[in-house]
């Protein structure tokens, strides 16, 4: 479990997949507007929310993530017209499967964040990080070899 060196508290690892066209720009806006979001959130830029293979999500957990969030353009606003509609179905089914095998369901989330929604980006990340703090470390989907 990653602990904060100073406080000894649990510091989760949170992976945020953000699409290049909306959500990544939304994160930029959050930054330039000086809106805070937790440093525990690590952003991975992807060309489209639909680029996120379900395996990426599992892989993130395997490598030690405690929570994974996918952000993309709002439905209807996809830079490639329809990518996020496919992503929506995929993630719904994947999250449902994770719930089915007993992984706590708060660990995964999808949020649509546009390039103009810096505030939404920051509140979403704050909320999500709070949820992961509440759930504690992910022990059900980690690769034990990656420990220490």
């Amino acid at each position, binding site marked *: 479990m990653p602990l904060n060196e100073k406080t000894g508290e649990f510091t989760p690892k949170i992976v945020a997949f953000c699409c290049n066209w909306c959500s990544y720009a939304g994160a930029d806006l959050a930054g330039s507007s000086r809106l805070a979001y937790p440093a525990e959130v690590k952003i991975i830029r992807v060309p489209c929310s639909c680029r996120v293979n379900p395996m990426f999500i599992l892989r993130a957990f395997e490598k030690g993530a405690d929570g994974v969030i996918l952000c993309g353009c709002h439905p209807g606003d996809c830079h490639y017209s329809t990518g996020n509609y496919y992503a929506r179905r995929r993630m719904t089914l994947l999250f449902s499967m994770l719930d*089915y095998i007993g992984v706590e*369901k708060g660990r995964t989330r999808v949020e649509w964040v546009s390039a103009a929604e810096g505030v939404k980006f920051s509140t979403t990340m704050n909320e999500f990080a709070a949820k992961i703090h509440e759930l504690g470390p992910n022990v059900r989907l980690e690769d034990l070899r990656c420990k220490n």
Partner: protein
Amino acid sequence: MQELINRAKELLADGTVVRVLGWRKGDMDYNPEVAYFNSAEELDNFVYDGFCGANLSKYMIEASKLEGKTLVFLKPCDTYSFNQLLCEHRVDRDKAYIIGVGCRGKLDIEKVKAQGISGITAVSGTELDGPDSIKVSTIYGDFDVAYTDAMLERCHVCKGKEHKIYDELIGESKDTHDMDRMAAVAAIEAMSPTEKFAYFQAELSKCIRCNACRNVCPACSCRKCVFDSTKFDSQQKANVDSFEEKMFHIIRAFHVAGRCTDCGECSRVCPQGIPLHLFNRKFIKDIDELYGKYQAGETADQRAPLVNFTFGDAEPSIVNERGSK
């Protein structure tokens, strides 16, 4: 069975087909194997009995690349797989002559052994028009086992005995559906996350990663499988930790989601008896409930739910309402 052999010989003789894809006698009565027959003489080894559970559709991918037509025998459930492969342009309809064969459920030797019967030397009475109980000969004597008690799980939840695609039909089928297909999935859904996790952990830790489930699956017909990639830790090897077990099973089930016809081959071949259908049926159940009823392989011109969408699809957060309490 003789009727099938005779018809196959006729079709070979008149040049309609150049080879036959069917089942031939194995080393034991309960393990016939998939085989090509190229001549009338070879057909003497042909069998079609209660143990011919193997779905021949997937073999038609390779047979479609051969010269000339192949005669293939398909059970009702196998025709769904064939349709799905047609849909994905993996088989060539013009290269197949399909005889739809009757089915009264297929047998699982493990079900017989589970009744405490061991040392099996022979099994008889499993033919399509055979009696209601099969005779199991063992080194300890003979036993009668009711046909339905030895049936594969998938036959108890059979989708129906109607062939979805064929050129001709031979043999009468019997209805075998006597269980709810989604009951086991619903039972797991009702568990708490801790119970679910413990259940799957116990089942999946049995997996030896033989890849038989993938190799037999008609939906798993990618020319390059992600699980053969050397860049991926999970390639063709025993699982190193509990994560790999789950990764393999979730990803495989995900890759076949919306394309899996629930033919039951994966669960049938798993040497460890892992109930793999529980994964596939979870996806089928979710798809049915969220995106409308869908049966892969029902026809050859459907659009699979995961390569489709509607503007009003549910948001992923719906899992919070539907999932574990």
